Every structure is written in structure tokens, then in C-alpha cells.
């Protein structure tokens, strides 16, 4: 209710703002977080499929640090959560900059406690205003943006293997295995992180991305990212709007 005395800043569009207000939230301030890391190389065996555990840990830690900074700022502002969070990575050689940006929001009625994470920290999510509205109307609340990271070294094929496959149409099982494994590890870790945050619903809007950042060509980073959600336990949210078939008057 300090709206008049202290104008808010946000990168929300007007309809996002309206939808946020419709579910009882108001924006406070645009919050930014950044982390700088030096990502060293980890040596790997030329002919082996293996995870580069140290690099996985670093790439995850860098993201978590940027997110933690945002949460600290939002907490200081008295926010109940952060919506529309985006994480961007700039990697030059071994120097990595991870920046995160989002809009801190709070419950107007002051009953934001039940929307916060279990340690009283504000929730984080990458949902737009419209998605946030739909989620809350559907009886769920975001808990945290969760990540799973796996940096993997894909084995080189020996000359012998190459001779065997040239001119043939066949599955390359060791490559299949490597990429399959790496993705499974990344997705599995999202699940674990969500559980660690105490989310009981699930993870929505997950995306699995691949990145190489100019590392050695056989080293690939798989990142799975999504928003962990929990059901809201109160009667008002049990009644959700029924979906309807709509013909848009646009185009």
C-alpha cells in the first residue's frame, strides 16, 4: 500500500500488471543479480564418455549464486516472490558472467506468507504475468526456478570404430548412450532440486538446452530448467475457472 509514496519499477507489460493485480499481487521493483565465475577446464579421457563433475558443479553454482542475490534483494524489499525471472549467460573463454533479472512482487492483502518458500524466502519463477495468473487461478503456486546441470564429455571414436561405420547406416550406440545419459542426469537433478525446495506439485515449463560456449567440441553442457510448483491449500483456490473454447477476433 506504499504505492503512492514509492513508485514501482518493473518490466511487466500492462496486461501482465492487470493480471497480477487480479490475483492479489502488486509489483515492487525490478531486481537484478549477477555472478562472475572462472570456469576452469577439467581434464577428461579422450576415449571415454563421462560427466565432468567439477564443471557441472560450477555451472550450477554460478546460476544459483545469481538467483540467490535476486532473492536477497527481493527479501529486503519485503517481497513475497519474483516473477518473470530470466537468466542470461555470457561466457568468454573461461570467464563467465551470469545475470538474472525479474520483478519482485508482494501480496496486497499482506497474507503473502503462504506463498513464500519454506525458509520464508520469496518464491522465484520464470512465469509471465499471464502464466502466473493462470497458475494461481488453477490452484497452484510457484515455489522456485529449478535447474539441473550436466557437463558431459562425449568420447572420441577410435580409428577402428570409424572404419567400421563409414558407408554404413547404423546406430552409433556409444554416442546415443552419452547424450541420452547426460540429458537424463540434467532432468533428474531438476527433480531433486525441486524436492529440496519442498515443492509437492511438480515442475512445469521445463526446457532442456544444450550449450558449448566455445569449449572443446566434445564437451557439452545440458541444462534443464523449469518452475517447481505446489498446490495452494485453501478453499478459495479449489474452485478454478472452467476452460472454454474461444475464437479470437484477432487475425
Amino acid at each position, binding site marked *: 500500500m506504499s504505492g503512492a509514496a514509492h513508485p514501482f519499477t518493473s518490466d511487466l507489460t500492462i496486461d501482465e500488471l492487470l493480471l497480477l493485480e487480479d490475483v492479489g499481487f502488486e509489483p515492487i521493483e525490478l531486481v537484478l543479480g549477477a555472478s562472475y565465475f572462472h570456469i576452469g577446464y577439467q581434464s577428461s579421457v579422450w576415449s571415454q564418455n563421462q560427466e565432468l563433475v567439477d564443471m557441472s558443479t560450477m555451472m550450477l553454482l554460478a546460476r544459483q549464486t545469481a538467483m540467490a542475490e535476486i532473492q536477497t534483494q527481493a527479501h529486503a524489499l519485503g517481497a513475497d516472490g519474483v516473477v518473470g525471472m530470466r537468466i542470461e549467460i555470457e561466457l568468454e573463454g573461461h570467464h563467465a558472467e551470469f545475470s538474472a533479472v525479474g520483478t519482485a512482487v508482494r501480496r496486497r492483502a499482506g497474507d503473502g506468507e503462504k506463498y513464500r518458500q519454506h525458509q520464508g524466502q520469496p518464491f522465484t519463477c520464470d512465469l509471465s504475468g499471464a502464466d502466473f495468473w493462470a497458475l494461481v487461478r488453477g490452484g497452484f503456486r510457484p515455489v522456485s526456478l529449478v535447474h539441473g546441470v550436466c557437463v558431459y564429455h562425449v568420447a572420441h571414436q577410435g580409428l577402428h570404430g570409424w572404419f567400421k561405420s563409414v558407408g554404413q547406416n547404423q546406430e552409433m550406440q556409444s*554416442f546415443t548412450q552419452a547424450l541420452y545419459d547426460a540429458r537424463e542426469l540434467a532432468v533428474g537433478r531438476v527433480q531433486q532440486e525441486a524436492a529440496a525446495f519442498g515443492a509437492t506439485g511438480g515442475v512445469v515449463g521445463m526446457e532442456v538446452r544444450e550449450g558449448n560456449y566455445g569449449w572443446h567440441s566434445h564437451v557439452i553442457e545440458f541444462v534443464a530448467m*523449469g518452475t517447481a510448483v505446489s498446490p495452494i491449500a485453501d478453499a478459495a483456490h479449489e474452485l478454478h475457472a472452467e476452460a472454454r473454447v474461444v475464437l479470437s477476433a484477432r487475425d
Partner: protein
Amino acid sequence: MTQGTPGRPQTQRQALPQHAVERIQRSRNAQGQRFFTSDLSVKEFLLVRESGFECAGLVMGSSFYHVGYQKSDWSQSQEMTVLTQAMYQARELAMARMEEEANELGADGVIGVRLHVNRHSWGEDMIEFLAVGTAVYARDGSSWRAPSGMPFTSDLSGQDFWMLLKSGYRPISLVMGNCVYHVAHQSLRGWFKSVGQNQEMPNFTQALYDARELAMERLQYEAQLDGASGVVGTQINESTHSWDAHVIEFFAIGTSVAPIAMKEAPPAPVLVMTVNE
């Protein structure tokens, strides 16, 4: 699988990698409660619930395939059956592994399946086929599996899935058909005849027409084997996959559907005017 007619081959049940098995086991906690991960958007997630389904988890399958070379006659339009089969087999393997993950999760089906074709700088002539989707199960415990006993598969979005059920149909499986075709080069004489002229090039028309028809016919055949009454959302894509420019793959994919008993009439559409641009 006989030459040239890649009907639905009975792909063997696929063994899953160890980390996939571990991940699937962890999707239920000690109390047996499920915890899902999914790439569905919030709206899709809510509509899936609205349709009486729950998300079981993200499922995926991958196949890294070495697609070699097939010799073709420079002046002849013909199907390259070896390549057709390789491209089909690779996709089928990725799909079968994804289905197996859904089966392990105890799901009734998979929605929002996307087939990606990836290349990596270190794998010349190698293509990775990746199938990703979200496994779902019916909340009331009824079985929605395909007639084969495996979970149904479909490339429908959460919105489309909701609409499909509302209009009295259910998805059965993702059906596909492909055809790799070599389009003949034109002879010098032919080139002289056509230069500066506006006319149809019947041999090119014929070749591309043929290839698309073959891909569609195979898709249709798969749908018939599934006992489906039709196929929705069919797309035909063409790509040369960095082969010779005259070698083209036509790939058709869609979701086969069958009617279900309707409890209520499909909802009438409502006209809305959107205020956001």
C-alpha cells in the same frame, strides 16, 4: 521390414540407460507420491488436469545414427530406399525408447511429443534423433493405452489434447512416414529446351509429387495398422539434411485418433476480442 515399404516394424522393446531408470524410480517418493517434471506450459498443464489427466513426468528417447551414403543414378528420379529406412529406423528407435520410459512410469500416454534432429560438430554424417514429450495418466485410473498395450503417443499440445477429448476423439499414436528421394538432374538437351521458357517441368513435378505421396501413404498405412479412424495435425516437412542438393527427405508426421463415447456435447465456441495486440 520389406524393401521399400517401411510399414510399422515391430520395434523391439528398448532397454533404458541406467540414469533414466534411476530418474524414473525417483519420480515417486518413499510414500509412493508422484512428483512430475514436464515441459508443458502452465496453460497446457492446467488443461491436462481439466481433461481428467495428471502429468507423470518428462520422457525422452535418443538415437545417434550414422547415415551413410547411397549411390544414385545421376539422371534418374528414384527413391533411395536404404536412406529412407535408416532415417525411419533412427526415429523409430528414439520413439520406442521414449515410449518405454512412459511405460516404466506407468503412464497412459505421452502428449506434446517433439522430434528433434540434431547435429554436432564432431559427428560428420551422424544425426541425433531426439524424442521428448510429457507422460500423462488418467486420474480416475481408467486405461487409455493404445491397442498395442503401450502408452499412446501424440504430438498434440495440451490445448489440442483437451479439444480433441472434448470433441469425442482420443489419440492412439504418433504415426509417421518418410521417403528419401533422388530427383534426377536435367540433361543438357532438356535444359536447352526450357531456358527462357515459362513451362512446367514435368519430371521435377513428378518426382516431388511421388515422394510426398509415398511418405503420406506410409503414414496412412501406420494409422490403419493402429486401427485408427483418422490422422490429425499431419505435417509434411522436407529437408536435404546436408546431403547432395538433389536428395530430399519428405517426412510426414501426425497423430492417429479414434472416436470415444461422449458424455456431453462438445462446447460451443465463444467469440472474444483480445485487447492485447
